């Protein structure tokens, strides 16, 4: 599985990578970008299986990035709909609705344990009919 991590915090990118390993995901390759604009340059719907993105970032925030990804999906015939999980420290119903409206599939609230990450990744991938890994 190829996972694109989009976050301006090096610390959070390390935490997410480590959490995938601690949760038992095997064979995961990580691509990383410090903001939405850089991530769009890396994003290829044929080469990425999952995106985890921070919300508040310089240059292009997570919501704008998610909308751009969905736009690319619509404009490219036959492209896969890549699941996006937003990682944020701010919770609440209003925020969740804003994410759903932007085309985000899942939501991970900081702080999170590896088990919380595993649960949300599995939920999102099941929803988009992808296989995570066998346990």
């Amino acid at each position, binding site marked *: 599985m190829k996972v694109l991590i989009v976050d301006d915090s090096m610390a959070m990118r390390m935490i997410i990578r480590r959490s995938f390993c601690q949760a038992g995901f095997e064979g995961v390759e990580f691509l990383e970008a410090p903001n939405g604009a850089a991530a769009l340059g890396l994003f290829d719907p044929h080469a990425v299986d999952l995106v985890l993105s921070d919300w508040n970032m310089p240059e292009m925030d997570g919501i704008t990035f998610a909308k751009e990804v969905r736009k690319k999906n619509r404009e490219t015939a036959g492209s896969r709909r890549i699941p996006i999980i937003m990682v944020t*420290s701010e919770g609440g119903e209003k925020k969740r609705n804003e994410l759903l409206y932007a085309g985000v599939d899942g939501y991970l609230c*900081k702080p999170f344990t590896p088990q919380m990450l595993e649960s949300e990744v599995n939920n999102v991938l099941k929803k988009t009919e992808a296989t995570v890994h066998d346990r």
Partner: protein
Amino acid sequence: MTGEITVERMKRAITCSIENIFRTMLNMEIVPADDGRATVFMISGIVGISGGVNGYVAVRSSSRLAARIASAMFASEYDNITTEVKDAIGEITNMVAGNIKSHLDGAGDLFNLSPPSVVVGNHELYAGGRGIVIGETFIVHDDTLGVEVFLQLLEQRGEGGPS
């Protein structure tokens, strides 16, 4: 209650947020300090607050505790202030500020949060303008962690203020 930020409500939000972050993400035990100890903080993470309410959220610690926090966060050993340690403190501050905002329910919608900045070395925090500083201290492995929230009095901006 929505829309009103009281000192007690903010103190509860600070305590709930810091305890949740340290226990969930760092697996470090943290308890409120009750002895009013004076501490020299050598590193502070600061997140700005702007919008309906202006101010900042700061997470402050000694160099030793900051290194311990980074060690727990990254599962690596740090014994002085490195780039990774600064990043760890910045991220902790970011999480604390976001969690405080969530804990305030609708009142948290009053403000936006900036990306974190980190100050290292001998320093003190001084907030310009009239306002209220709400601070809590915690004990982590015999070290002291400080969290403070400064809110500018809205009366200075021609409106009512936090109570």
